[in-house]
């Protein structure tokens, strides 16, 4: 259960970045989370409400994009998407695959804000 500390890091990062837009309200924060990132999406969402309370992100929506695991298959000489985390085998040829190309991501992709327009 380290989702609360992960969510706290997100709040910290976005708070830093949003300071460049004075008066802005954060509507949405989008994450990219790899299927092998050891993070439970439900827990992230649960912790989000707690961690954002009283911050500039209170009420903002958390959107989690799950990134599938992509391995490089030497036999096929191609990158392939893993079908199951219980077997690191190429879905085409069935060979074991050890070379991870994608799936451990844990990043903030973007956030959406409502900006206050300056009066002319």
């Amino acid at each position, binding site marked *: 259960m380290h989702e609360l500390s992960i969510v706290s*890091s997100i709040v910290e990062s976005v708070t830093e970045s949003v300071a460049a837009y004075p008066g802005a309200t954060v509507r949405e924060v989008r994450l990219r989370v790899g299927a092998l990132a050891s993070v439970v999406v439900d827990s992230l969402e649960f912790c989000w409400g707690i961690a954002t309370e009283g911050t500039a992100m209170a009420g903002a929506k958390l959107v989690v994009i799950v990134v599938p695991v992509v391995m490089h298959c030497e036999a096929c000489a191609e990158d392939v998407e893993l079908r199951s985390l219980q077997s*690191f085998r190429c879905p085409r040829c069935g060979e074991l695959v050890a070379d991870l190309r994608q799936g451990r991501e844990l990043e903030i*992709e*973007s956030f959406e804000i409502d900006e206050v327009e300056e009066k002319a």
Partner: protein
Amino acid sequence: MTTRIVELRRGILKKNDELAAVLRGRYKAAGVLVLNLVSSPGTGKTAFLERTLRELKERGARVAALVGDLETDNDARRLAASGAPVRQINTHGICHLDADMIDRHLEGWDLAELEYLFIENVGNLVCPSSYDLGERVRVALLSVTEGEDKPLKYPTLFNSADAAVITKMDLAEPCGFDRDLALHNINEIRPGIRIFETSAKTGAGMDEWLTYLAEERALCRGQN
């Protein structure tokens, strides 16, 4: 009001990753092999590490250990009996070690004086896999009493490991441990990984493990 989307593309654990990279540089410059031992609570990390420290000391190696637990310094006291410098890291509820905890607990130690530094993580098969400690070798441990399908249940951790250690092999028979199935499952999750079958009690598998440590240490020095 206008709506704007701000692209950030920033790693959530960026601060940890950056500090881990600094630590990795320090370990490399000092020529010390750093290992991060991860398993469930009760796998026998401490017993395995006790035996490893003792045998390395007997061979004249300069070793040290950091040991993480939520509370108590029991493990540090057990490990210190080997004569190696040992420090306890109490996380007080945090389920993993992070690079900052390592950095703070290394203070005052001259890494160049060490050949091997072992980090025993908090007993947990999920959270420690997200936190890079700058280690060269991440070791996933599994005991014969835990069930052969553990790697399938915790693929995120086993897939991030560089070596796997099966502990308590002396109990394999009474537990009805299916060795072939366990080896198969580890290999399904982390193809090609080195697997050591050990017993801290009888010393089985320790020679092979110590040889591996020496090989890894030679490699980490060669990269300086």
